[in-house]
């Protein structure tokens, strides 16, 4: 597998960006007209989308808190997006942890933004990188000094893998990561799925495809297979809001509406 080291792609502001559209769903303003138009179209098709995205972000929050509490001291957040509201390092710091946080994204604007706002946190960095080059990511992460390959790390692939088609062999990428991270490391995955709403999901995929950031919904079994070599923590691979809901949260009437799976596994 010959792959050039990560190089920023052309920045084309006439196209919406996954990272900025996501920010819009979360209620942020790190976005442009094209992003919002895109989001509007998506919402027109699927009004719950912002809620789904927020549920994803809430899962990220709960998972990171849980990992801090279980003693993880370094985080590798791949496909982190713009480190906007509720991002990993905020959750980590709010939980009173000094853990190192390495963000990686292949969106150059997200990277530049991250660099700008993370300047005064010496324990957080933002790197440009592509999940399809896991070796490059691990090497440059280690070079920052915030990731020690000898110690367990939490690798976050949250709302990322559905942007990696089968041809790129996401399972192989995870297997590579699995091989190179220390035992006791964690894998955090959330993944869009059509299991809940097959028809609307198909339409939605189509929209992303047109934007040349195709989305690849996967079934529960397919997502579960990514945890090969990892032991899933309670409650296993579940719909986003079902993963360790916080006390006091309203029980979700129909979790399938949140058509995304989430899980955290420990490298054995």
């Amino acid at each position: 597998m010959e792959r050039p080291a990560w190089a920023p792609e052309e920045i084309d502001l006439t196209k919406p960006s996954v990272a900025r559209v996501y920010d819009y769903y979360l209620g942020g303003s790190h976005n442009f007209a094209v992003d919002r138009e895109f989001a509007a179209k998506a919402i027109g098709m699927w009004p719950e989308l912002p809620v789904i995205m927020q549920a994803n972000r809430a899962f990220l929050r709960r998972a990171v808190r849980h990992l801090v509490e279980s003693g993880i001291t370094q985080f590798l957040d791949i496909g982190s997006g713009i480190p906007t509201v509720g991002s990993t390092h905020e959750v980590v710091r709010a939980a009173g942890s000094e853990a190192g946080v390495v963000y990686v994204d292949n969106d150059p604007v997200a990277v530049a933004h991250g660099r700008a706002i993370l300047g005064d946190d010496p324990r957080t960095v933002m790197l440009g990188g592509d999940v399809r080059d896991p070796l490059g990511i691990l090497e440059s992460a280690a070079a920052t000094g915030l990731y020690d390959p000898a110690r367990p790390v939490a690798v976050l692939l949250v709302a990322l893998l559905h942007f990696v088609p089968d041809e790129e062999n996401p399972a192989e990428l995870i297997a590579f990561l699995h091989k190179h991270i220390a035992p006791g490391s964690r894998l955090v995955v959330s993944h869009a799925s059509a299991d809940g709403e097959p028809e609307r999901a198909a339409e939605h995929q189509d929209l992303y495809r047109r934007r040349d950031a195709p989305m690849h919904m996967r079934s529960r079994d397919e997502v579960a297979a990514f945890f090969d070599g990892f032991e899933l923590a309670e409650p296993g691979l579940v719909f986003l809001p079902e993963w360790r809901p916080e006390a006091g949260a309203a029980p979700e009437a129909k979790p399938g509406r949140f058509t995304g799976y989430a899980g955290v596994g420990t490298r054995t």
Partner: protein
Amino acid sequence: MSSRADDASPGVAGLGAAAPAAGDLGTPAAPVPGVSGVPTFAATGLDLPAPDVLAPDALASDVRTPDALAPDAPAPDGHGPDGDRPDAGTPDAHTSASAPSIDHPAAPDALGTFGASVHDEFAHEWAKIVEGASYVPLPADEMRDYLRELTYRLSDSLDADPFRPHEARDVGEALVAAHFTGTGTLERTFGLIGEWWPRLRAHAFSQQRDPDDYLLRVIQIQGALAAGYAEALRTRTLAEQQAIHAAVLDARALTEQALHTSEARFRAVFEQSGLGIAIGDLDGVILDVNPALAQMFGVHQTELPGRRVREFMLADDPGHVWEWYEELARGEREHFSAEKRYVRADGEPLWTHLTVSLVRDSAGGPRYQVAMIEDVTDRHRLYTRLRHQAQHDPLTGLPNRALFFERLEAVFERAAGSVGRPSGADRVGLCYLDLDGFKVVNDSLGHDVGDQLLIAVARRLDAYVSRAGHLIARMGGDEFVVLVENSAGTGQVVALAEGILGALREPFRIRGHDLTVSASIGIVERPVAGTGPADTMRAADITLYWAKSEGRGRWTVFDTERNDREVARYTLSAEMPAALHHGEFDVDYQPLVSLADGSVLGVEALVRWRHPRQGLIGPDRFIGLAEETGLIVPLGMYVLERACREAQRWSGSAEALGAPAAAPFISVNLAERQCHEPGLVRQVERVLAETGLEPERLQFELTESQIMATDGGPLERLRELAAMGVRIAIDDFGTGYSNLAYLRRLPVCELKIAGSFVEGLRKPGDADPVDARIVASLVELAHALGLTVTAEGIETAAQAERLRAIGCDAGQGWYFSRPGPPDRIATLLDGVPRAG
């Protein structure tokens, strides 16, 4: 929000219905009556600075940016529609993205009517309606706590005296700070307050407040909340917009810089590389070359672009290079490497290590070819020189044996590899040459002169042989070899050998000495098919040996038959020790018969070899070999032992018959080598003792020449044997030179006349008179010396009769009996009448 103050039920109906449905958002609302100074919800966003900065047209109803609600907000600064620039309205510095912490004033219940549970209830409903509009990074219960705090602050400011509506601004700001930034957050909040108006009104009554006055308070509080919220949101939006724009610029700058750096890096590599680099298109036209490449070729950098790669094709290019090149140009091969020669502008060879790679565009289609050329000329020269050194003799400069064998092997490989040629068409010739008496030159005139002579000889040989187009190599010492490839026949090679001998005939003048040298040459000339280089070389070596042993200054041609004979002899002699060990040697017996009365006087023991593959082999074929190798000593002893044992058996049976004197003696051949054995006498004594045979019954036969040459130790041994009583006979008498006087000194008691004399007496009637007379004189002479005479090779009765008439004592030959197994003799002894 279209409630009217003068509605029938202004409070409940008005505010209660005020909660706008999402679909209403675009509808311009009527001003809230009776509340002067409080702006209306224009809420269209039309007057926003720029759609890109704040709200896209598609989301024009986004109420997140209700600037109009904020009377003291900075005026829109009228950016163009593409307002990407981040300088739109510098936001207030106090806006923070991080979650706020709220210092809640203590004891809200001091107000009396609104208990904690009421605040809880409001906060709970509030959380439900704003949730989902945006992401708030708090767990559900924390979010509710947060909103409860805000509820307390609202109710505090509502009930405060004097009235402090502006405190509600902070609540608006706090909402944004906690990221309650979603569309509709404010409307939903006001809708909730509207729903709560009846309870607020009741509360006013209970507080003895004027409900209208209280309503005004509520409206003012809402206004302040809206203003605080709007300003905070606007500030935050602007900050985020500015941040994202800055990020775009940064990212762009970074990308450009990366591009620029990689371009500059490439340029630097291209210009400064010591490696020659050429870029060509897929048609094979050179587009660009770097200075290193131009320098290698000895041209100016501008001379190569435009020329075609194929112009650089040379006849000695490895064949596959251009095949690979074509594949690469077609996009079927990514790269290849090869060693290739070029020719510099000045005609000098340029040896290179070449790597050509295909460059594809981002879609994967072939675009360019890039050649990296390393100048390995020096390395190549060094290699060539080392190779030359490894293949040449440092003294004479001639090719050495390594090169010679390489070429010789190539001759055979070529023949093996050539198909379709009639076999035997390829012939090869070798002249293996060795100077005669070179050692003498070296020893007498010194190595220096010897070396000079070798150099001179080499030069002359080279001049002669190379002219004829053949390879001459020095094999070491004073040996040289000439390889004749594609020989036309033995004649050609013989002529060459004669030419070489002729060329050497002229004396060499070395350091004042005139040295004449001659050489011996072994010639092999044969078809290539059916032999190999090692075999051919061995043949040349043997032939040189033959030439040398036949005399010097001559050539000899390899003779297959002679070689085969020598090989066969060699093989036999090599097999003999094992044959002796395995008992392959047998002894046959032939009687010596009295011509006077036909009695058996003696028996000759004759050794035979029952060879497992060659059958019965006579002594004439192996005794000579056994003498050469020394095996004759154990073989002779073996025969002696067997023969004596048989002879003793015969004596035994003669005794049994009451005629012990009639027992024949046993006659055994004694080889020269055996006579030289110091232990001979003792061994004979031992055999006699072991077998019990009396010494008088043992006779040793020695050849005439052997007897004559006997002297010293051997003679002493013969005398000792004779003294013991052992008979000594001279075998084949008459074939050699005999010094008769000498014969007297020897302890001989019998002569055996060679069969060649007897031959002349064979035919009845006309016997050869000369032979008859010679035999007669021999017999006479022998008798005069007191010797008995036995004639060998008697085949006819006539011969026997004549010899008897001449006076010969005994006869041996087929006429009497062929050699045979010991039992034959035993029968013979029983049947033949004995003498005496």
